[in-house]
């Protein structure tokens, strides 16, 4: 076992392969304050990639409701249960066990094995509140009847459990963009990756008898476009870019800015030790203890920063750039109330005003001789 550096838990940890960070690392940031679980992302992915034989049950991108939803059933509860109670003091590294460190001698990572039925209830728990809402209840903010939506793709982890678990080395992480792929010609369908991935994003195909997973939309990424699930998001809650580790972070890189510079976006279940590369702006009204278990001890500061967004024109600018282009934004800046997005070469992709201009038109149009309807 090698010692590798995991910046999300702020310490070294054990992993079966040496540290080998890719030249660029694919990453997505989600604003959970905006997700409405319309499932457009799930279907964008499905119609693009998982409409084939054996893929009928697969949602490489899925959206589940927290706390009571999960796809597959109870995936996070089960892996946390397997890991056991762990402690993480604020402002300190995580000294609890990762799934690699908690592994027994017969396995690569502490895990549980899902059954086929576990995949058959993708909408289980959808829209279920954490607490009951009874007749006659009067609810005001802040309240404890909360739920939020959690959209999730494969995290293309820096230290993937799937890659570590494959006895045939049929899973690899690309040097050019950090995307993790299962080699469809070398996989023999053992399902070790399906068992090992704590996020359960590796899935067995009963038609081809081998396993598959989210491919990070690499054909689009190679051409400079963001993944399908990102560009089709109706609420424009997502942005995909290339994240740097904190010691190389650039303020004008959108993902670096949200994750490293402002601390607004946090990785999910970082304590598992995989250094996942999907990051979430936590939902500000949900239960803090629950959020801390999911996103780590920096939840409070992330929420505080989000509440002060009106004082941060740069962050506001970045948030309006989300969903404004299907191309990958390598650099951005905000000047005089306008946000500018640039590609790898430094050419402008798009610019977006932070405040939408208001145009007032008279109710009766003299030129056309007709009234204007207030139809949006």
């Amino acid at each position, binding site marked *: 076992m090698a010692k590798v550096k995991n910046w999300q838990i702020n310490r070294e940890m054990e992993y079966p392969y040496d540290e080998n960070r890719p030249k660029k690392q694919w990453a997505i940031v989600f604003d959970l304050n905006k997700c409405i679980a319309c499932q457009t992302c799930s279907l964008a992915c499905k119609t693009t990639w998982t409409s084939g034989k054996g893929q009928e049950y697969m949602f490489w991108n899925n959206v589940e409701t927290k706390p009571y939803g999960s796809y597959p059933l109870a995936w996070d509860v089960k892996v946390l249960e397997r890991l056991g109670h762990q402690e993480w003091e604020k402002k300190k590294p995580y000294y609890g066990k990762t799934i690699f460190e908690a592994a027994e001698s017969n396995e690569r990572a502490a895990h549980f094995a899902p059954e086929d039925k576990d995949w058959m209830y993708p909408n289980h728990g959808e829209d279920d509140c954490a607490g009951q809402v009874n007749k006659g209840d009067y609810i005001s903010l802040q309240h404890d009847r909360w739920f939020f939506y959690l959209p999730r793709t494969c995290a293309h982890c820096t230290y993937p459990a799937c890659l570590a678990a494959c006895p*045939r080395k049929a899973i690899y992480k690309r040097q050019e963009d950090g995307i993790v792929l299962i080699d469809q010609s070398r996989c*023999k369908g053992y399902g070790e990756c399906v068992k090992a991935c704590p996020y359960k994003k590796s899935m067995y195909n009963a038609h081809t008898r081998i396993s598959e997973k989210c491919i990070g939309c690499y054909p689009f990424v190679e051409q400079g476009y963001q993944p399908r699930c990102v560009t089709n998001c109706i609420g424009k809650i997502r942005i995909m870019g290339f994240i740097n580790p904190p010691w190389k972070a650039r303020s004008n890189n959108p993902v670096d800015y949200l994750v490293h510079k402002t601390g607004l976006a946090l990785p999910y279940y970082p304590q598992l030790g995989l250094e996942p590369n999907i990051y979430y702006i936590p939902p500000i009204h949900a239960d803090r203890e629950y959020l801390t278990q999911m996103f780590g001890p920096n939840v409070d500061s992330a929420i505080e920063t989000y509440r002060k967004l009106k004082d941060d024109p740069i962050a506001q600018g970045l948030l309006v750039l989300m969903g404004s282009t299907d191309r990958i934004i390598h650099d951005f800046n905000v000047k005089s109330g306008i946000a500018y997005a640039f590609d790898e070469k430094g050419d402008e992709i798009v610019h977006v005003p932070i405040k939408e201009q208001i145009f007032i038109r008279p109710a009766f149009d003299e030129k056309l001789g007709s009234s204007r309807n207030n139809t949006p």
Partner: protein
Amino acid sequence: MKIKLLILILCTASMECWADINVVKIYGNLDKDFRSKSIWKGQNLDQSITLIGQPMIVPKPKKTETSVIRVSAVHDGKWIAFRLRWKDSEVSESEKLATFSDAAALQFPVKSNEETPPIMMGGKGDPVHIFHWKYQYQLDAKNGMKSIDQIYPNMTTDMYPMEFKEKGNFREATKEQKEAFVGGTAAGNPQSFPKTGVDEIFAEGFGSSAVSEYQLAQGFGEWKKGEWIVYIARPLIYENGSKLHIGRKSHIAFAIWQGGKKEIGAIKSLTMTWTPVNILEK
């Protein structure tokens, strides 16, 4: 060092390690009749072989599920057939997600019959020739590969890419176009195609197994009252593989998977030493 110590302990604990498998010559056509009762009628002296749960690499079984197999073998001058028997309380197949098939494998050296390669699936430059029988492969051969709606009858899907339910006024997509998004099939992965019953595989160390271009071996298994009886037949001589010469000695190793106990890949019971095999002239 760990391997050598383990082998020493196992072998001193059980004299069966030094027992040879003697392959008698019979008159017949084993390539067609390897399962026939008349061929095996006189063969009642099975050799008992000890197996242990794979101990060397992760993932490992938590315990040894199959500790003993009984082996007999015959040859007809051209083909050799093995009969394996081991206890398994249930029959297991692997159509559905998270299910695994009962299986057995025979492993032979390629380079040298006397100086054996590392037992754990050979080593670099020192390949092994493996004959992998799986109950699921046998079902493929008998019933064809089942479609998803046969495996999960209550499933529903509106359509598959480029497969339209009604014929219309358009050009039908080619097979390649339809399979473009079916990963394993498009990549030509042997797992995604119907099997014959036995896979022939070459390997140079664990994790490196590759299905052979030529599939000549045959196999068939029957499960009766808590016991699998599996027959595997193969040509004695392969030009680019294992060569079993009549009148000479070779070596063999075994592996068994109990699908019902979630055994697959490296999670199996196997022999940690090579068993000598004598191909008798008579």
